[in-house]
């Protein structure tokens, strides 16, 4: 579903991704883990066509990322990106109108799980609620690919719980999900496979349960070992 071949992205002075070659099969839930600055966000933005590779290629469903691939790809950014003057309800109506894969039933379920406040302005919401809204907009779609950029980082515990619950409840099992995070605890049970990024390069890419069987350790523990060298 997702393929990167020698994908490199260089910003002025910084090599965010170095020669990344990987393949993610359709329907897998991938944990993209690494500390801040390891290239996770860059990778997801490249998949959305929001960044262009410096060299190498990346494809999603065998196509170059662009407006066409956005039809079936749902993206949850880490930062606040919604129009703050919109009321939540208007924002949902406007945003959902662009997607044929908007699932009303899912949206209803997620709205209650995430506690979406319909009549406030987006700008008036707290950080945690803005994060919930961003996740809502993505998960309410029957997208083929979900790209979640640090959906739990810097979020209050109550919102974290709701977000985790929302993700679990919206999974059918056939979606391709990339969940990028530097906090692995609690969410690692959702990973089919894990990609460890270290300074822009793929350090490890394995099936999660295989890793557990082989090392007798959880992903969180392996994470600490890998990044504390």
């Amino acid at each position, binding site marked *: 579903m997702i393929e990167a071949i020698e994908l490199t992205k260089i910003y002025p002075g910084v090599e965010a991704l170095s020669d990344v070659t990987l393949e993610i099969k359709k329907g897998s839930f991938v944990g993209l883990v690494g500390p801040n600055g390891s290239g996770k966000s860059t990778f997801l933005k490249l998949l959305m066509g929001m960044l262009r590779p410096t060299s190498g290629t990346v494809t999603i469903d065998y196509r170059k990322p662009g407006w066409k691939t956005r039809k079936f790809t749902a993206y949850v950014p880490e930062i606040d990106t919604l129009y703050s003057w919109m009321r939540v309800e208007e924002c949902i109506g406007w945003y959902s109108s662009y997607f044929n894969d908007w699932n009303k039933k899912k949206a209803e379920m997620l709205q209650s799980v995430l506690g979406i406040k319909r009549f406030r302005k987006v700008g008036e919401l707290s950080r945690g609620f803005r994060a919930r809204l961003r996740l809502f907009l993505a998960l309410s779609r029957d997208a083929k690919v979900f790209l979640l950029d640090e959906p739990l980082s810097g979020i209050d515990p109550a919102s974290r719980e709701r977000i*985790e619950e929302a993700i679990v409840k919206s999974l059918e*099992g056939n979606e391709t999900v990339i969940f990028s995070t530097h906090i692995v605890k609690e969410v690692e049970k*959702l990973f089919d496979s894990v990609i460890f990024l270290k300074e822009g390069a793929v350090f490890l890419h394995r099936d999660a*349960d295989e890793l*557990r*069987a082989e090392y007798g350790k*959880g992903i969180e523990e392996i994470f600490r070992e890998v990044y504390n060298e």
Partner: protein
Amino acid sequence: MYNFRMDRPIYIQIMELVKRRIVRGEYAGSLPTVRELALELEVNPNTVARAYRELEREGIIRARVGSGSFVNEEKVEELKKELVKEAFEEFLLSLKELGLEKEKIKEILEGLYD
């Protein structure tokens, strides 16, 4: 909400859970669907699917196209033996770890029997 250990493959823990429930008779009808169980355990449906596949390989469950999965009744007796044996072996292992002599353990057990 079920607490899984992260240092062992989750799909294996799910298999063990399902086996225990089968032995307890909780799945006398049909097994929950992959999605249902995933929702209950709060895990990825793919992991449940893997557990079910392995259980099928072991012959403990059988999948019928369109109607979900069912317990293979013939295997239940064998399963009961297997789980009791496992529990017993764990018990024995924990006793042996005490480092006591077999006779001493027998003496204590007889005393505890009442």
